[in-house]
């Protein structure tokens, strides 16, 4: 499906290119050229480019957000990143949920259990730790 989309995108792009060539010969065909302009600025972009953009921006956010964590909470930071890294559970759910080969379901189930240990263990131990940080009572 992925490649399907890409192929379609390339096809559409080619059509736009043809339009441009025509437009260069005949300025009356501005509409086609416009189609290209928009094609290039929004119409037919491989989702990969968007994902890349999201990834790069998320790295920036990660960089800033982690540096702004107070050193006193670096241990909870480790346990909470561990907990959130179990979003990999999404893959396990896909494997178990749509039953296909018995083996795949088995692997998916193991992954699911392991991820669940992390999710519950990680968040709970973090909240246990965080509950301990108290201010001086005055």
């Amino acid at each position: 499906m992925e490649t399907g989309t890409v192929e379609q995108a390339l096809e559409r792009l080619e059509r736009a290119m043809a339009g441009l060539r025509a437009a260069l010969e005949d300025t009356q065909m501005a509409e086609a050229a416009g189609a290209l302009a928009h094609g290039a600025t929004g119409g037919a972009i491989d989702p990969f480019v968007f994902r890349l953009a999201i990834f790069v921006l998320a790295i920036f956010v990660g960089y800033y957000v982690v540096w702004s964590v107070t050193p006193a909470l670096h241990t909870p930071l480790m346990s909470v990143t561990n907990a959130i890294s179990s979003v990999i559970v999404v893959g396990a759910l896909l494997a178990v949920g749509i039953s296909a080969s018995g083996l795949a379901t088995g692997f998916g189930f193991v992954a699911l259990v392991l991820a669940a240990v992390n999710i519950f263990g990680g968040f709970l131990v973090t909240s246990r730790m965080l509950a301990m940080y108290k201010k001086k009572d005055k």
Partner: protein
Amino acid sequence: MSANLAAFLYLVSGILFILALRGLSHPTTSRQGNIFGMVGMGIAIVTTLAVARPSAGGLGLIVLGLALGGAVGATIARRIQMTKMPQLVAAFHSLVGLAAVMVAAAALYAPENFGIGTVGAIHAQALVEMSLGVAIGAITFTGSVIAFLKLDGRMSGKPILLPMRHAVNAGLGIALVVLVVMLVATQSHAAFWLIVALSLVLGVLIIVPIGGADMPVVVSMLNSYSGWAAAGIGFTLGNLALIVTGALVGSSGAILSYIMCKGMNRSFLSVILGGFGGESAVAGDDGVERTVKQGSAEDAAYLMANAQKVIIVPGYGMAVAQAQHALREMADKLKGKGVEVKYAIHPVAGRMPGHMNVLLAEAQVPYDEVFELEDINSEFSQADVAYVIGANDVTNPAARDDKSSPIYGMPILEVDKARTCLFVKRSLGSGYAGIDNTLFYKDGTMMLLGDAKKMTEDIVKALDE
């Protein structure tokens, strides 16, 4: 559920994860942040269920799996001792690695579920991403297991230097690349499992030469790698939550490794190459006779009770001895006598970032009595007593004065500026870096040799009299 709505919800869950980390910028907002994280995870799970629409049997399995794993996780989280946090993080970490391997295996056997082709005809791009994911996952798994064993003392912390290890590792790396090419070319399941097997071995080989004390850096590093791997899987599945989370986890691990290496004044490479920092080293015995002033718990109690200001400097030894509760009791007694008490935390005191802070928090020391190095270092000169409990390297003046010292340049807590410096430890031995501490032989220093917890309890008793 529409594809757009699902993508949007995954985005929301990614943003909630960002807010979870953001909350950690201050203790007061941290609990709320943790809740954001849980909600984000909930949204990711529910969205996936709504998208995959499992059969009744599938749903049953899912509920079973979540319940099973959840029960185990919750039990561990409730029971674990705070001093065991480094081990726990390593152990949890190995689970994520194994889960990644399992997900990749499931994708190999049922690629349709993931929309990456059919058995025997999986898209090449997906195969490459999958094998990268599985390799990193497997390395993370065995690596974290070794790290766990070393941190938990079930395996000697000594670096195990195998002969020709660099050559062997390089060979394994090349073999992995060849296998990935084979997998893409032939779609052979055997190639996949060989990749898994070699990666598991590689994980062991990479980590055993690294000393026990360096494990926290390793754990952070593996954490960072697994983040990048998760982002890779996110690209394959086109899942925004995974992409964002991967970037967050990757950054977090990298930054924490950097902080640790900088705090230890070592390069990341030297940590990874291994062979450094085994068990607590032996007493520095270089032949020169040096005199040490030794004191008793009563001496210490007398000195502190008559002080105006005491700064407590905890280190790894406090964690080993579990002395944090006794310490807090001692501080309360002193405060009752009108003494001003503060805690000074070095960025790499203990064996993981923030290690001392968690332990003090556990003993209900309010976090606004606990100060970071930059904020308190100038106060030592006005303090009457620096009470150094189980810390060593982080006070070693060699880091400041001796250009030839391996830790030269690492910032230290300047306890030698205090009028009197009390050192609680079991011997004149060195700490993690294996370097002799000249402070022990200085005039203003009094050594309180003994277990940190026992000694502190004795001081509490002496303060009562």
